[in-house]
């Protein structure tokens, strides 16, 4: 079968070559320890007395995760292979490099592989005498009725942001952890895929999606969605997603929300803004107030076409954290 068209060199080299490129472009804000090529640290974030927020996961979701490392957000990242949790070592390396003596908080999406690897990292850190805790993100409401089994997807951006702001404000680890859980509990994402994606090594679609169909509830690794259906219009797709989110969120009229309309990779801004227009209409109808919005590729799945919509149900505690300035390699605010 023909290989999918990619601008890469050797398939197994993509992650390391990408990291070389990222470190070259963003050398003003990012660095990595010479012994730990898969641990990348914020130059200006970590400091004494501050909780270190370490995020991580597989590659192929850029700007997630590495793009959110920087002052005001994450202090470091452990970088895995494409769609693969990083092993424990880079998570440990990132934690030690960013450690400010106030504890380490690991945050990542809820996937079996990530849980096993980061749990091993926690054990290793404990042996070094560094206190580490974990908050899993579980914003993908389509992935399970049981919240503890849900995946973490694009909502990561808001959830990490809230926790990162709390840490930047020098809150103690109990507070940062509590806020991270609170942010996660109030963040709801659902997405659709319009095409498969393909790994750099195989360059074959991970699954078949016939023309005219879409996957509803698709994960960000090309895992098939919860069901398949005919491709619908932007408004119909938005309505289906928002019906599901609004029901689950169950927010009173007048509640304030943050919105993320996210591209899974190949879907361009034009389509995202068309989705956004409908989101804004639906939220207005529901009596909800949009406090702030992000539109763009924030959490991708290689070259997959598709989009997800995330709504974070804000409150007085979350608003200043979501508004908090940050200066990351691929995400700036304030």
């Amino acid at each position, binding site marked *: 079968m023909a290989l999918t068209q990619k601008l890469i060199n050797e398939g*197994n080299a993509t992650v390391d070559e990408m990291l070389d490129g990222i470190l070259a472009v963003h050398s003003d804000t990012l660095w990595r320890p010479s012994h730990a090529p898969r641990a990348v640290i914020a130059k200006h974030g970590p400091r004494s007395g501050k909780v270190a927020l370490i995020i991580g996961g*597989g590659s192929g979701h850029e700007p997630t995760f590495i793009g959110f490392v920087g002052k005001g957000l994450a202090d470091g990242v452990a970088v*895995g*292979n*494409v*769609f*693969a*949790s*990083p*092993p*424990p*070592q880079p998570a440990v390396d990132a934690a030690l490099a960013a450690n400010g003596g106030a504890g380490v908080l690991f945050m990542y999406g809820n*996937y*079996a*592989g990530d849980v*096993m*690897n980061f749990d*091993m990292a926690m054990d290793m850190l404990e042996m070094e005498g560094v206190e580490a805790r974990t908050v899993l993100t579980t914003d993908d409401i389509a*992935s*399970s009725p049981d919240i503890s*089994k849900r*995946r973490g997807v694009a909502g990561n951006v808001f959830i990490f942001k809230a926790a990162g702001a709390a840490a930047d404000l020098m809150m103690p680890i109990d507070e940062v952890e509590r806020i991270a859980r609170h942010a996660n509990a109030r963040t709801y994402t659902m997405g659709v895929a319009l095409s*498969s994606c*393909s*790994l750099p*090594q*195989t360059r*074959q*679609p*991970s*699954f078949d999606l016939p023309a005219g169909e879409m996957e509803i509830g698709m*994960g960000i*690794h*090309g*895992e*098939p969605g*919860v*069901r398949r259906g005919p491709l619908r219009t932007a408004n119909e797709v938005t309505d289906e997603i928002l019906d599901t989110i609004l029901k689950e969120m169950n927010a009173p009229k007048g509640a304030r929300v943050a919105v993320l309309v996210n591209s899974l990779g190949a879907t361009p801004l034009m389509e995202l803004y068309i989705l956004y227009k409908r989101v804004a209409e639906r939220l207005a109808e529901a009596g909800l107030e949009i406090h702030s919005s992000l539109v763009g590729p924030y959490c991708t799945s290689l070259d997959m076409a598709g989009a997800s919509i995330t709504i974070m149900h804000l409150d007085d505690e979350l608003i200043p954290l979501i508004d908090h300035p940050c200066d990351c390699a691929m995400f700036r605010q304030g």
Partner: protein
Amino acid sequence: MDFSTSDLKHLFVRLAARMSTERDALCALDGVIGDGDHGIAMEQGMKAAADQIQSLDGSLQDVFNAAAKGFLNAVGASSGPLYATGFLRAGKAVGPRLAMPKDDLRLVIVAIRDGIQHRGKAEPGQKTMIDAWHPAAEAAAAGATPTSILAAAKDGMEATKPMLATLGRASRLGERVIGHADPGSVSAVMIIEEITLEMAH
């Protein structure tokens, strides 16, 4: 007949070659119910394990420990911690010997299963690699022939097809996984096949 550290190194070289050959088939299986990368994880993991141990001077346990570390650091993912823990347990089971009777490879199969279960907390019937490792380990512990151990693993893998998944990525797909083998159980059968071939030699 004895199984030496050099035999163990050769076994890892064969496992690396096998996973490389099967990479795209395993990815395709994982694409159906997972994220399409299982073949890559197994290829990179076994290659790193084999590379890590080639020039190592030490006991069977040392070789297993180094293989575990090599596999884990190259891969991460789900397979990394699971096989790394399996190999560490295997090393502990065979101990700091330079060689052992070939029949002690039974202990290796049992220990890998134990390590995978310790790390992943899977029980048989959840549509994971444990569905191949567990029956193979039970057969190995009961003194079955290499052929029967492999047959048990294969049956276990086949049995994953009609299962619903309750652990790992596939657990979110509900009924859609029915009819498809778990990719981790398929690669497990390949590994068990290489080990039982050693036992039978």
